[in-house]
């Protein structure tokens, strides 16, 4: 059984990974898809602009990658801290 100090380090590392993932999650959907769409309007893609693509497809593709990368990183972290099953 891991001690308390190690559990705290594990939790801090988990929160750091979540933080980075959620920044990317926010940027591709709320950022590129909504708030920054006017900024990206110059970049044409398939009859429309990059912001439209992110809002309708790009964000979903990035969400998929994010979850699997998170799961892989956490599996590694679980092992490093000896809290895996």
């Amino acid at each position, binding site marked *: 059984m891991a001690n308390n100090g190690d559990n705290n380090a594990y939790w801090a590392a*988990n929160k750091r990974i*979540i933080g980075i993932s959620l920044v990317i999650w926010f940027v591709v959907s709320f950022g590129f898809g*909504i*708030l920054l769409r006017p900024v990206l309007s110059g970049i044409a893609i398939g*009859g429309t602009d990059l912001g439209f693509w992110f809002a309708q497809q790009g964000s979903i593709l990035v*969400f998929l990658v994010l979850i699997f990368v998170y799961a892989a990183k956490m599996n590694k972290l679980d092992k490093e801290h000896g809290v895996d099953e």
Partner: protein
Amino acid sequence: MDQFTLNLLVVGATFALYIGIAIWARAGSTSEFYAAGRGVHPVLNGMATGADWMSAASFISMAGIIAFGGYDTSAYLMGWTGGYVLLAMLLAPYLRKFGKFTVPEFIGDRFYSQTARTVAVICLIIASVTYVIGQMTGVGVAFSRFLEVSNSTGLFIGAAIVFMYAVLGGMKGITYTQVAQYVVLIIAYTIPAVFISLQLTGNPIPGLGLFSDSVATGQPILQDLEGLLSDLGFKSYLAQSDTTLNMFLFTVSLMIGTAGLPHVIVRFFTVPTVKDARSSAGWALVFIALLYLTAPAVGAMARLNLINTFYPNGTSEAALSLAEIEAGVDAQGNDVNWVNNWAKTGLLSFDDKNGDGAITYANGDANELTVNRDIMVLANPEIAQLPGWVIALVAAGGLAAALSTAAGLLMAIASAVSHDLIKSQINPNISEKGELMAARVAMAVAIAVATWLGLNPPGFAAQTVALAFGLAAASIFPAILMGIFSKRINNKGAVAGMLAGLITTIVYIFLHKGWFFVASTASFSDADPLLLSIKSTSFGAVGALINFIVAYLVSNATEEVPADVQELVESIRIPRGAGSAIDH
């Protein structure tokens, strides 16, 4: 073989499959009934989650909403998928480690409060019951259009099927049936889309076809569509017409509402380990994305096909004439029988107001065609003149989507009643056998109530979906999140926060939609809302923020969380030991 026989064969075959699974997957214990014995493989759980999540609204309505709403409706696409990122990282793994059966149980234990548990049960029941009405009406519509039985007969058949596998098998029966239903619904959704994408763009992948050039004009199809819409005076497909603030908050509300819907969360209680809970959320999104990446293509292409049907020679030439609709074929020899077929259902109507013998489709007073947006998926194969078996498949797919979601919701309601009310508050000494019987009875009652509501849908049925997402976003999601990520939020803070989020959200919705959805009592409208440009459907995000602030302030002003509860929080953050929770 005529279309009716074909529909009957395909739908009958899928129903036989579901019943076979029901008999195979009977539940023998409460663990099997509530959590499928926690033995479901993460990929299969992902598939079941996909079917659980993708309702009649996703299958039948979403592409139509996109077809008529364009860019603004991207909020649905991002919101209903982005919630899974939150589930995978912020909720699912820790709730699986907690290792109990229901969402109210977690809230009750973490905030050491029966009041908190009861508030969570109330939110769960309101959210799930409102949601289930839509599924039951969807079942009725699909039956009456494709199988030529009355709406109510269709509803009874659907309810009988759900009864068989949900009451017999509980979560175990539901899970394995949902896997089969996912396969049926995704095939039914993508096959017509592939055909249509090939016809229009030559690209077999609809998601790529959406951004490709048209075979007919050589231009990108989105530009073709934009041009036609502008000719007919409709609003732009590509430009934003909603305010940025409202679109932002609507997307937030749908995302955290998705993550907070109890029938989705409990799916992650069924996998063996914490590791599986994380990857299962990823697999769920893979299976959901297969439909959600296709939906915007279906929407845009169906709108394009609709306009081309009514203006076979372009918008500057004559529109489709009444004589052509009557004959079921236009001057170019295209089959337009679908117009009459769907006019019979009332989902499409036309009226030659100016008496020129043709049907004008345009924005404004000159318009003579009314199209229900649900047609965009249901009639899509007919509009694109696809073979009969594809039409039969769409019928089976719509039914699979509605039945699988209904079963998941009924499961959430039944376990809240038997586990969170009867076992926890009314009769704590109930035996496992007694609880299992109570769960089965609760399930049967829930199905009866849902069927009755499906037969007599309240006039406000469509609007209550906003209520379901608003409640999940404003009360359940923040409570679970704070329960895991903060050791400082105590019982008083959690209850005050949940009630504050819940009440402000309900009041805001009622102010705009009318008290208890009686339209005449509304003080504001979504066109001109109370706060800035925030529509009532987008208020869940604000309600969640209020919940967080109130919970934080009240907790800081009152006592610390007891040591044993702090230990509980420590333990759910660490994956090791989740397997042993199987036999708790």
